[in-house]
């Protein structure tokens, strides 16, 4: 890879106070995300994947202690002001969370929540914002989008809500999308549809995606490269084929071993 990375995480450590001392949730993690690629981050729960994602978004609780650097196009995000971070979140980054059932505010309509993301940093007319929201819902595959704008989250299924979440994340046409276990809470057929959708969006919009999952099978389907995290550390970073052919770390081998039939069609969809 000769391109300059879009995002570069360097020696990132994240600690949380616990009792009298503190625990390290992420320990000196380093990896790069290149423009337009789909980087998978795998690891078991508690390995620091989600904390890393939230650190990139600047959404960790104020008690978190961060060290190291997170460079977005060369600028260190950890040194940015709240305002700069907000602007970055509103223009360059988008995030999809694990729990579609609780990630949308129950008292506002879906349309309101999408339009809010659309107009977060750009002033535009109500009509323009509505059109954009309709456009986004259409893009994430929600039928008769104009009508669904008036729906409240509780009127939609989990899969639909996750599509809405993707629409919100795409509202600012981000260059980097972070998806934290976006399909874990959903059933298998919906999972496949959403992965298809994410992959299609990447190709269409050229958005780089960091896909976090504990499922090697998912990675095999969509990832270009994979970062493996184990016990708060990055233990391996490799292209998807290389990873499946010659896993370097015993934990990676273990992961591959638990999904035996996936190695056969690594790029298949």
């Amino acid at each position, binding site marked *: 890879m000769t391109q300059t990375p879009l995002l570069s995480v360097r020696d990132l450590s994240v600690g949380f106070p616990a009792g009298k001392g503190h625990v390290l949730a992420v320990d000196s993690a380093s990896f790069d995300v290149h423009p337009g690629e789909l980087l998978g981050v795998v690891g078991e729960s508690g390995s620091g994947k989600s904390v890393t994602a939230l650190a990139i978004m600047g959404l960790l609780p104020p008690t978190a202690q961060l060290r190291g650097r997170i460079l977005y196009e060369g600028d260190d995000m950890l040194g940015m002001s709240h305002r700069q971070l907000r602007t970055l*979140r509103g223009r360059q980054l988008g995030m999809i969370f694990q729990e579609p059932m609780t990630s949308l505010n129950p008292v*506002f309509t879906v349309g309101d929540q999408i339009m*809010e993301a659309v107009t977060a940093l750009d002033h535009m007319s109500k009509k323009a914002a509505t059109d954009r929201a309709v456009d986004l819902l259409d893009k994430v595959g929600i039928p008769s989008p104009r009508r669904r704008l008036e729906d409240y989250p509780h*009127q939609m299924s989990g899969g639909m809500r996750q599509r809405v979440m993707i629409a919100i994340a795409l509202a*600012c046409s981000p260059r980097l999308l972070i998806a934290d276990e976006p399909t874990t809470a959903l059933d298998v057929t919906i999972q496949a549809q959403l992965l298809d959708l994410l992959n299609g969006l990447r190709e269409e919009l050229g958005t780089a995606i960091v896909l976090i999952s504990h499922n090697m099978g998912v990675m095999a389907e969509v990832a270009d490269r994979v970062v493996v995290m184990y016990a708060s550390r990055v233990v391996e970073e490799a292209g998807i084929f290389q990873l499946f052919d010659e896993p370097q770390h015993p934990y990676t081998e273990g992961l591959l071993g638990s999904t035996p039939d996936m190695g056969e069609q690594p790029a298949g969809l």
Partner: protein
Amino acid sequence: MLGYTVSRLLQAIPILFLVSLMAFGIIYLIPGDAATVIGGPSASAQDLAQIRANLGLDQPLHVQILTFYTNLLQGDLGRSLLLGVPVTEAIIQRSPVTIGIAIYSLVLTIVLGLSTGIIAALNHNRWLDQAATIFALIGVSLPNFWLALVMIVLFSVNLGWLPTGGYVPFSQDPIGWLRTATMPAVSLALLQAGLLTRITRSTMLEVLSQDYIRTARSKGISEWKVVGKHALANVMMPVVTVLGLILSVLLSGSIVIETIFGVPGIGALLGNAISSRDYPMIQGGLLFVTAALLLLNILVDVLYTWLDPRIRVGGGK
């Protein structure tokens, strides 16, 4: 929603029936002969007979109950022994005063309680949070009538800012009303403000930890909007549910507070009735205030369902 309102009103009927029966029964709690107690030691046998006849105590119990309910259904709560006017009339005449101060006090409670609770939650475990928590605890621990006396000593006697009591109707002189109604309203509000602060703080803390708040932040909208729109909308609902409780505390507090400040509302009316053993007025006042609160509670519940789209819109999956 109309169906819900109607069903809540229907549910209130048996409770209202029991409540009225209890209010009716209070006169039977008087130890010994009620007429003697009401008439006092100087009453002659003729006076006593007159009192019994006025209150219907010379009738058999079932006739008394029947009469009570026949009158009640016509809005007749009996005649005040002290004032000589119908209880309903006296209450309705006095109610604008009490309602005015109650609304003033409610506004103070909500503004003070909500803002303190939210500030505390936003500064969780920092000194502002501690200060708000202490304020709320002290608020719920002070007797409101004592607070009223302290305020009179401080603001009327020592500083001379406000009159020690009395009342000027709002329609006559809004400034005068504000000068006379402020201390009663504040002394009524502080207790509930403490209560509301505690509830708002814990609800806000819970809401702020929700996933949808994180989603809102991830959009890049201002923190002001995250808290003021996304969090607040969800905090309001649990807060609405305690409105009924707040109103109830507020109206019972008004007896003492109106008496202290000489405000001519329902509270002072009842306070006078108590000291002069005017039982029809006590019964009628008790029943009236409780029935009003039952209706207000239903209103609050309906408001709640209207606020929550999960109930209002339905069609949940």
